[in-house]
């Protein structure tokens, strides 16, 4: 099968900007979402000429948005109310480890698993990202988990 061509950035941006803004507003509130929106698409633009194909671009850009939302909420959290940190092993934050672990999965499973476990997206949001249904998103994530466990790789407690 031929790889899906990477669309001109203009088309990619127009197609996904509403979803990205909606997602960020839900996660961060209106004002913070606007800054994060701009940064999301600037990051996407910086990496755009290194993409190898045009598949799953919505989940790719939502991953960038989710990472920004996580970073922003870490910065915003007052030190006194520090919640227990997400598990960090090998000096890498959990989301980076999960992305690494999931690297060899089929694209849909990888996207669903990473968005669910690394970025804590709801299956409703993942369905939007994958242009699919919440149920299909849940199935893709869990078959990704099963596949990783079957491979016997070090899934740690990251995927619980």
């Amino acid at each position: 099968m031929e790889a899906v061509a990477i669309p001109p950035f203009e088309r990619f941006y127009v197609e996904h900007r509403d979803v990205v803004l909606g997602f960020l507003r839900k996660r961060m509130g209106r004002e913070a979402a606007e800054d994060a929106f701009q940064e999301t698409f600037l990051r996407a633009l910086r990496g755009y000429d290194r993409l190898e194909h045009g598949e799953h671009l919505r989940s790719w850009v939502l991953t960038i948005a989710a990472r920004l939302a996580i970073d922003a909420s870490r910065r915003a959290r007052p030190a006194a109310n520090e919640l227990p940190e997400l598990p960090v092993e090998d000096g890498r934050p959990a989301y980076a480890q999960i992305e690494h672990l999931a690297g060899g999965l089929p694209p849909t499973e990888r996207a669903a698993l990473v968005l669910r476990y690394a970025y804590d997206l709801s299956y409703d949001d993942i369905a939007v990202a994958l242009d699919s249904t919440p149920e299909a998103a849940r199935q893709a994530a869990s078959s990704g988990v099963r596949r990783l466990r079957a491979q016997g790789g070090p899934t740690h407690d990251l995927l619980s």
Partner: protein
Amino acid sequence: MTFSADLDRRFREAAAAEGLLDVGFDVVESPIGPLLVAATDRGLARIFFDAEPELHLDRLARAYGPRVLRSAHLVDAAHRQLDEYFAGERSVFALDVDLRGAAPFAQQVLGELARVPYGQTTTYGTLATKVGAPRAARAVGTVMNRNPIPIVLPCHRVVGASGSLTGYAGGLDVKERLLRLEGALL
């Protein structure tokens, strides 16, 4: 949810200001209809008479790279000078051009074309002679036909040996209007 026009504009501006675009474009209104104007960091690259962006996105991406975005920033200078030209206040464009992708012969012909003065006409044969290929009038016609930056590279000033207008990518009526604007036709 309504998408904020202001947010959209800010992103497009920031993208261009950070130098992240392979090519930026915008639609410029003109007396001969809207023009789609595209530029890279090297200079003005394209002017299309059909200003519907969706028609040109793929072509722009193939020629310059996938980071194609509508943004007034990169085409700002061209926009201003085109406005002045159509207002009759500018007879020479002072713009860098990006002619990558054009064959060496085409680059040579377009370079010579750029020297044809405002308000004057020349012929395909004369241009051919000037680039040292006096029998290549037809090839010069092909280069004019594919001119990536009409108006600024003034292929409207090139006419047939008999003085007939011959052809123009934007339509003969547009060629005639441009020549009238410049006072080359009475």
